[in-house]
């Protein structure tokens, strides 16, 4: 996160109110020690990874899995664990993050 100057009380909107969805600007990539890597060829487009991801980090366009949002994926591995593809044709594998 870049250190932005935080607003003073006069600039801040009154009443502890926020616009929707501002957490999308918060990057949690640093939480990850592993990352999921998708193989399009092995994917059967079942959408399971999308529904089980706790961090809304499976990118879906027009009802199709298209990859991961690495700004928000925390590398929990649920998607890979739940992906129904066979051991020799995994659509998601977890890889060590380079430190």
């Amino acid at each position, binding site marked *: 996160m870049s250190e932005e100057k935080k607003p003073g009380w006069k600039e801040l909107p009154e009443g502890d109110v*926020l616009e929707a969805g501002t957490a999308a600007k918060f990057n949690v990539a640093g939480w990850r020690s592993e990352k999921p890597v998708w193989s399009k060829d092995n994917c059967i487009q079942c959408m399971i990874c999308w*529904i089980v991801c706790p961090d*809304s980090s499976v990118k879906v366009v027009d*009802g199709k899995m298209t990859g991961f949002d690495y700004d928000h994926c925390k590398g*929990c591995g649920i998607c890979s664990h739940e992906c129904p593809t066979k051991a020799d044709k995994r659509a998601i594998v977890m890889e060590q993050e380079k430190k």
Partner: protein
Amino acid sequence: MANLKELSVRQDPLTGGHRACAGCGFPQIVRMVLLSSKDPVVVISATGCLEVTTTIFPFSAWNVPFLHNAFENSAATASGVEAAYNAFVRKNKIKGKINFVAFGGDGGTYDIGFQSLSGAMERGHDLLYVCYNNEAYMNTGVQRSGATPRGASTTTEPAGKVSSGKTRPRKDLTKIMAAHNLPYVAQAAGGYYMDLIKKAEKAFATPGPKFINVLQPCRLGWGYKPELTMEISRLAVQTCVWPLYEVENGIWKVTMNVREKKPIAEFLKLQDRFRHLFKPGNEQLLADLQKEVDKNWEELLKKGAP
């Protein structure tokens, strides 16, 4: 019922960038429930992990209208929101259906918020209350709650040299809510997402007060590897520790039949909170826990065979 593909084109109610632990079990539950609504939703949440991790100012993970008031009052707060909506509809100041959803953790639901929930449901407000039940006060560091199962170790009822964790079984809140004679009450688990989605859809299609109790594995408080969240959730169902059922206008029905019940040890042994149960000396307790689960399952089958 909408399938996953159809749901995936709806707007995700939650963004990423929230601060729940990697592998947490509640964001999916929230997404599954809210995506099931065809109409706009307004969310009210109790204090707890869900609210804390999703609304750290100035970052809100909510794409839908969201209100947090306090810990024990999400149902009462939601009843006020719903009343305001009704007043505006009557005065022609608002058009279009809105589904109101209150979330509370097990602490905010079974314990401190129990009265508020019971009151709001009894009054008949048109809202869905969802307990995301991780069976302890996780936000404040894994303290026991009325939902903590017997034998689990928590920081306020820990296993120790002379203790095997929680001594009493959890209260059966789903049954208690059924005793409120609500039009729709259900028990669900995130691991069986189609079952949960179907229940949420049913709830949204039913006017009046609805309650769904959703088991939520917590990798931190339960102590397991983060990728196992969904699997542990399913094991709770397959061992009949957490049966899936619904009570629709007084008719009970098991929604997930378990023909070959797995021994509860398969569920327990994956979790640190139960580790002490597998040490010598706790054989009887384990056997008792199994008996308790068997008995509850048999009773449930009598009420509403699948």
